């Protein structure tokens, strides 16, 4: 083997060995470092997963959503309002929808019910399903369920179940599909059914619905068309996809920005600790370096030795922190940060957060944790390496 590679291996080997010898002394720093990385990584993974969910959600949002307000509260729209939109040009499609909440008393859970007229046919929506299909036109009682609903109802392999109308009579339903986990944030508590079934479940009037989903042919005309719709239906609330996207962004970026600031502060504190530890370069350490130098180790070899030690510490702490963070998201649903991110959805039934981790995030985390640590240990390493060989004689 090449001499200089073997030389590096020898130094690395010596470094790992002496790190192991000094494990008691380094353990505390190692634990704190792992902890900081764990927090940082949990936060990053959580925000990545939620952002991913929001992205998936937003592609399914219609260009314009129209609702009816009365006394500042939302009330059903009727077929009459639908007719008023005939005069607005540039609309490519209008879909009535019923969006409501069903309270499942026996399980104490709240489900989101969406009744939609047109069966979904595009690929994107199909990709949201893990199994089965959407309700077909005219298919009565067909429902697509989110995973939390599925669990709560305790259906197992059974397909049929029933829910209660407001007058406590039963509606017979059967499951035709299940939503995939990666969009759990919005689909976990969701029941998707036909417009007629939803209307039946909520006992609404035969031509009533809660909102209108409008698609526009030319995206640049969305704001114009939105204001025309607002004029055509007095007392309506008209929301564009852009506005929804901005709301989500504001919520997430505020929360993740705030959290990241706190975590960076703790990281900074840790770096100071690492630096401090390096400054407390003990008498024995100094002796060791003096002996090694007397025996022919170069200043650069000592620097490399200390660097390998820091690198090994950082790599192990990084591995441990990342693994714990992964487990935290996967098995504990990000328990520590849930309330920071999801404060606005506490009424929803519990749902699993599906980790969405990219290589880019790992690199970013490395750059924000291991690199500052390594940088903080360079000066102590340099201080160690300039110990004079003749200091031991």
């Amino acid at each position, binding site marked *: *083997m*090449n*001499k*200089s*590679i*073997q*030389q590096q291996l*020898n*130094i690395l*080997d*010596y470094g790992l*060995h*002496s790190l192991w*010898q000094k494990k008691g002394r380094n353990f505390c720093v190692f634990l704190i470092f792992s902890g900081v990385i764990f927090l940082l990584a949990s936060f990053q993974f959580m925000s990545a997963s939620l952002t991913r969910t929001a992205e998936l959600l937003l592609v399914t949002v219609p260009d314009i959503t129209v609702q009816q307000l009365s006394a500042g509260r939302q009330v059903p729209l009727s077929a009459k309002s639908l007719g008023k939109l005939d005069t607005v040009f540039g609309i490519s499609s209008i879909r009535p929808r019923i969006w409501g909440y069903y309270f499942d008393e026996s399980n104490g859970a709240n489900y989101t019910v969406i009744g939609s007229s047109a069966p979904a046919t595009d690929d994107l929506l199909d990709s949201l399903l893990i199994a089965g299909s959407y309700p077909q036109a005219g298919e009565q009682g067909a429902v697509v369920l989110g995973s939390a609903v599925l669990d709560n109802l305790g259906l197992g392999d059974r397909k049929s179940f029933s829910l209660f109308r407001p007058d406590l009579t039963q509606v017979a339903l059967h499951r035709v599909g299940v939503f995939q986990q990666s969009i759990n944030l919005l689909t976990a508590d969701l029941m998707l059914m036909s417009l007629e079934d939803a209307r039946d479940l909520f006992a609404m009037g035969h031509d009533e619905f809660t909102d209108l989903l409008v698609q526009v042919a030319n995206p640049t005309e969305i704001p114009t068309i939105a204001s025309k719709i607002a004029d055509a239906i007095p007392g309506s609330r008209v929301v564009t996809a852009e506005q929804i996207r901005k709301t989500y962004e504001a919520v997430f970026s505020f929360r993740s920005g705030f959290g990241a600031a706190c975590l960076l502060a703790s990281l900074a504190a840790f770096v100071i600790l690492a630096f401090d530890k390096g400054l407390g370069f003990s008498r024995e350490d100094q*002796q*060791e370096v*003096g*002996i*090694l*130098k*007397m*025996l*022919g*180790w*170069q*200043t*650069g*070899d000592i620097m490399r030795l200390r660097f390998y030690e820091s690198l090994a510490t950082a790599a192990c702490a990084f591995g441990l922190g990342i693994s714990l963070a992964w487990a935290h998201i996967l098995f504990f649903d990000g328990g520590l940060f849930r309330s920071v991110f999801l404060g606005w959805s506490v009424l929803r039934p519990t749902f699993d957060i599906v980790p969405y981790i990219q290589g880019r995030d790992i690199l970013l985390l490395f750059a924000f944790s291991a690199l500052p640590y390594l940088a903080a240990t360079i000066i102590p390493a340099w201080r160690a390496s300039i110990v004079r*060989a*003749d200091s*031991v*004689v």
Partner: protein
Amino acid sequence: MTIKIPQIELSEVHKFYNQGQDNEVHALKEINLQVAEGEIVCLRGPSGSGKTTLLCLMGCVFGPSSGRAAVGGQQLQRMPDEYLTRYRRETIGFIFQHFNILPELSVEQNIVLPLLPLGISPKERQQRAEPLMERFGIEHRKLFKASQISGGELQRVAIARALINNPPIILADEPTAHLDSSRSNELMDHLVTLRRDGKTIVLTSHDPLVTEHPEVTRVIDIQDGRISCGGSICS
């Protein structure tokens, strides 16, 4: 008898510590000294006279502040630290006063320490350490931590470490200072066998057991950084 080839040749050597600063020390003055191959030379003098400094100079730990110094035929003056170090690890074996063995490492690991920065593979390190450990009777202790072996064994570990690179010159700074007389004798016996292997040996000591040892070829007296007698090679 013919004059032997000088292994170490110092002429008009001065050494300053902290040169040009307030705490400047003129540690060696006008040193003229030659040490021939196969000699055992002892440096003797009061504390602070410059024995260790002279030994370090001969050991290529630093070059002279002025004057000419050649060790093993290589001129040391104006040699950068990195080259001095590189030259030192091929040419010099050190035995320190307190042996300076790292207590947390095993006997074998201590012995091969000088080989690590040379890029020598673990297998070859073992091949080189084995015969030395056998020769000095520490083979059975090779996996012991250095902190767990006896003082006599420790001393033999230190000698084995000094020999691991097979250097032509062995330097020892007060090797017997903390040893009882039987240990001191044992150490001198080892040094004598090294001399028979053709090594050149320089040590510092004021122990009569060393300075009056029959195998010591010369005793050089140093006082206040100057050689007061014994500087030239005896023939």
